[in-house]
């Protein structure tokens, strides 16, 4: 069953005893003037699990991701990565600490090939450049893809597209390149902001399967999506947000049946209609 969420205290599924959460948020708030985009969120994410965030448009899901990745400053609260405070760390240092993300819209570099776009992610992985430059004059071979790129391309089924430019790809394929770029970073925490937007059902199922396959690697994943069925099929645990606050959390199938969640999505009037039928 889903649980109603207190607005203070930490939320999240219990991890193995004695383990440190990969990510912990303590009373995180992001206010833009008088607008409380995120208002007092506390939660914990454990390794090897897939978490989801659902909520209507404007509920603060993407702002929360931006706050976690330090692209948006916190108004208050604390962020802990593997128990280490990171709320004062620059966004550019988080990649080195194992945090990768995709964005709500496709953000590929148009003048670079798929291989080079994915390589940008691998570049953030420490030591990857050294692998690339192995051997004399290795730096003179910029087209040689690193093992991390080859692996990310294979996992996202992008073989054959490596030399294409983003403008030559369908929208769904571009989104897969974004995911490949994030995977190439070798993250411990992967944040996916509506990764399947614009994809058809087959492509969505592929992304869901990809995410589940990465769970076995110990990767902690946080997925923001509107496709609730995909959330049910993919996630181990779901948080529901509305107006910048957590309104429910728990097993995905339970959360989507939570009256507070249905009301947030549909409004009280539609919810009552739905129940009466």
């Amino acid at each position, binding site marked *: 069953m889903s649980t109603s969420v207190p607005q203070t205290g930490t939320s999240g599924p219990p991890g193995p005893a004695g383990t440190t959460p990969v990510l912990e948020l303590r009373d995180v708030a992001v206010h833009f003037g008088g607008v409380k985009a995120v208002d007092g969120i506390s939660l914990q994410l454990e390794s090897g699990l897939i978490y989801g965030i659902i909520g209507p448009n404007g509920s603060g899901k993407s702002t929360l991701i931006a706050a976690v990745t330090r692209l948006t400053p916190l108004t208050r609260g604390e962020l802990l990565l593997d128990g280490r405070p990171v709320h004062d760390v620059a966004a550019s240092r988080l990649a080195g600490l194992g945090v990768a993300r995709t964005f709500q819209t496709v953000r590929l570099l148009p003048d670079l090939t798929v291989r080079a776009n994915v390589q940008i992610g691998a570049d953030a992985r420490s030591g990857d450049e050294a692998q690339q430059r192995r051997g004399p004059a290795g730096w003179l071979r910029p087209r040689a893809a690193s093992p991390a790129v080859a692996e990310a391309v294979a996992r996202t089924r992008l073989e054959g597209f490596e030399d294409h430019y983003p403008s030559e790809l369908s929208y769904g394929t571009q989104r897969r390149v974004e995911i490949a770029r994030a995977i190439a970073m070798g993250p411990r925490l992967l944040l996916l902001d509506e990764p399947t937007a614009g994809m058809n059902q087959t492509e969505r199922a592929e992304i869901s399967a990809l995410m589940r396959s990465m769970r076995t690697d110990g990767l902690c994943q946080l997925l923001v999506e509107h496709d609730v069925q995909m959330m049910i099929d993919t996630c181990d645990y779901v948080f529901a947000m509305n107006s910048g606050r957590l309104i429910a959390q728990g097993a995905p199938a339970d959360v989507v049946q939570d009256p507070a969640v249905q009301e947030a999505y549909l409004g009280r009037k*539609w919810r009552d209609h739905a129940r009466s039928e």
Partner: protein
Amino acid sequence: MSDFFSSNLVLVQSTLSGLILALSIQVPLRMGVFSFAGAGSYGIGAYAAGILVLRYEFGALTAIALTVVGTAVIGFLLGAVISKLNGLYLAMATVAFDLIISVVAINGGELTGASTGLFGILTDFTMTQMVALTVAALALVAMSEVGRLGRRVDTVRDDPELAASMGINVRRYRLAAFVVSGALGGLAGAMNVLVRSTVGPLDIGFGLIVLALTMIIVGGSRSWKGALIGAVIFTWLPDLLTVIGEWQELVYGVIVAIAAILLPRGIYGVLQDGWRWAQRTRRDRRAAARGGPVVDDDGGLRPQEDEAAVLAAQAADQPHRELDQLSSRPQGAS
């Protein structure tokens, strides 16, 4: 060849110094930094090298080395102050910096030669040394366009937020753009004054920004190759157009206007597009022969073996299954 080189020595020298000047503006633009401080650094470099040789009797290469280090430091200090500005505001701040350098040159008294400038800056600086320094600078700039550094520069320019997420310290790159721009501008100014033996207030200032921008807009703003193309065209074109007398300014202006309108990525951009088109054609031919990715109806590309499955899935595809579809929405509810 040797006769041609000797009779056009001044044009060759102008091409090299013009190329480095253009790079001093192009390098920050490639990082998305709208800085024209390279023109100011050119002015500082020209006067500093002239003063070091004329007043303190330094050798040519020592004067150039000191000048380049000095303009790089000035670039760093300038960047530390204004690198947080963006777009038009940053451009205006750097134009102001350039104008300040011109004012200082005119009002510098005996040190800068005031409105008449400096004359008789004679050194043993050779054409070979000038070519070597230019090639060395070009090689360093070219290295910043390939591999990891090239990708990172592209990311900083196209999407600073993405760059930060990819572990790139955007502020450091922007600051580096000012330093490199300062060093290149200083090098261009120093080399030019040492081959010309004179510099005056009319040789620096706003006209340098126009010249450098013209070179990189027409040649291409994303690569040193574009700057090279632009430097060759706009150094040699005025000389070739002398046959049409007073009309040459008009022809010059029309070429710039046509390039700006029809070639937004410059001549090098057109060459690049042509190369990519040829690559794509060759690749698609190979792919079709072996059953690899092909162009689909909407212009996207998909692996051939998946084509039937993708089309079937699209036909059966449902709209996004959002939460409202899990409950039965009442007819007519609004």
